[in-house]
């Protein structure tokens, strides 16, 4: 359904580019409804997501275990390309998923770890404690984050780890302005 025939596609050629327009191939799925329409697809989806939440703890444990395994491989083999990429992907997945799973502090720590992996000029020279503290903190949050009173602890832990990592990155990238800019720049993408 999505593809228009070539006859529907209009091309205007300019000196440096072509502008290609076509009738909206998805227009048929748009339906006008009245103001009284009660259908709430977003609410329905949020309810469905809440229905999955019983599995989030187990999922998060799997993600944390993957991160620990990736770091163990780094400790054994060093920062080979494969080991480095797997450690980054494991941390990156936690950065993206953990807040959805109810572990926002783990997401913050995972983001901090991703930044270290991405911006440290030489991973072999990064103090190993910087990695182990990140990995261990995520394990601790995932396995002990069942009580409300631990939330403030995990929040403070994530804040301090991020601060230490940022100080380190700012120091080792002091002569690498493109990395410094990326480290200091805020996210520009809205979540919603």
């Amino acid at each position, binding site marked *: 359904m999505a593809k228009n025939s070539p006859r529907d596609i209009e091309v205007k*050629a300019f*000196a440096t580019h*072509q502008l290609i327009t076509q009738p909206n191939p998805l227009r048929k799925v748009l339906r006008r409804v009245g103001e009284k329409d009660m259908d709430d*697809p977003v609410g329905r*989806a949020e309810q469905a*997501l809440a229905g999955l939440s019983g599995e989030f703890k187990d*999922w998060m444990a799997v993600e944390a275990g993957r991160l620990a395994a990736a770091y163990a491989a780094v400790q054994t083999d060093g920062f080979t390309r494969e080991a480095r990429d797997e450690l980054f992907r494991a941390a990156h997945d936690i950065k993206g998923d953990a*807040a*959805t799973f109810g572990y926002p502090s783990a997401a913050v720590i995972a983001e901090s770890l991703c930044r270290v992996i991405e911006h440290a000029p030489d991973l072999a020279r990064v103090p190993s404690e910087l990695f182990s503290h990140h990995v261990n903190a995520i394990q601790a949050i995932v396995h002990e984050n069942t009580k409300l009173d631990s939330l403030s602890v995990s929040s403070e832990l994530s804040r301090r780890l991020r601060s230490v990592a940022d100080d380190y990155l700012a120091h080792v990238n002091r002569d690498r302005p493109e990395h410094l800019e990326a480290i200091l720049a805020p996210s520009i993408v809205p979540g*919603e």
Partner: protein
Amino acid sequence: MFRIDFNKLRFLVCDDNPHMRRILRTLLHSFGAREVYEAEDGATALEMYSHYVPDIVITDWAMPIFDGLELAQMIRQPESKGNPYAPIIMLTGHSEKRRVTVARDAGVTEFLAKPISAKGLYQRILNVVANPRPFIKTKTYFGPDRRRNTSSAYMGPERRVGEKHEVLQQPSLLDKARSSI
């Protein structure tokens, strides 16, 4: 007010993380979608893209071997036999400006930063369905117009020339397409 008939849309979801695929599937089915195809890497997604001809592609960025960026670049091949125009929503943990620019230059239509929300995903889908942008083809780019709006106060260099008065007469893709039929 408009609603989307999700049951008429075909989705392709590409993410190497099974948990995220499950969440995406759950959200899309809750919106009303029936056809949701899933791939765990870019290469499989590209095969499924050719086979199922999805209306909308939702892809993660960071995946082993063949990532979401490469998937977008492979889909946005103007001379390919497949559909190079399908909306691509990149769902990713990357949210730095540099990354967004790279994704935009690969032909990604919409960018949605994780953590995912039902509202955020719905709005991106609504946007690509209701407000498709024209495509631009240059020597180095093929994809949705990267200018989402125009500003009369813009003071920088004009990178596109010939917008109004320097239109060159040259065979268009349409003419080429017609002549090949």
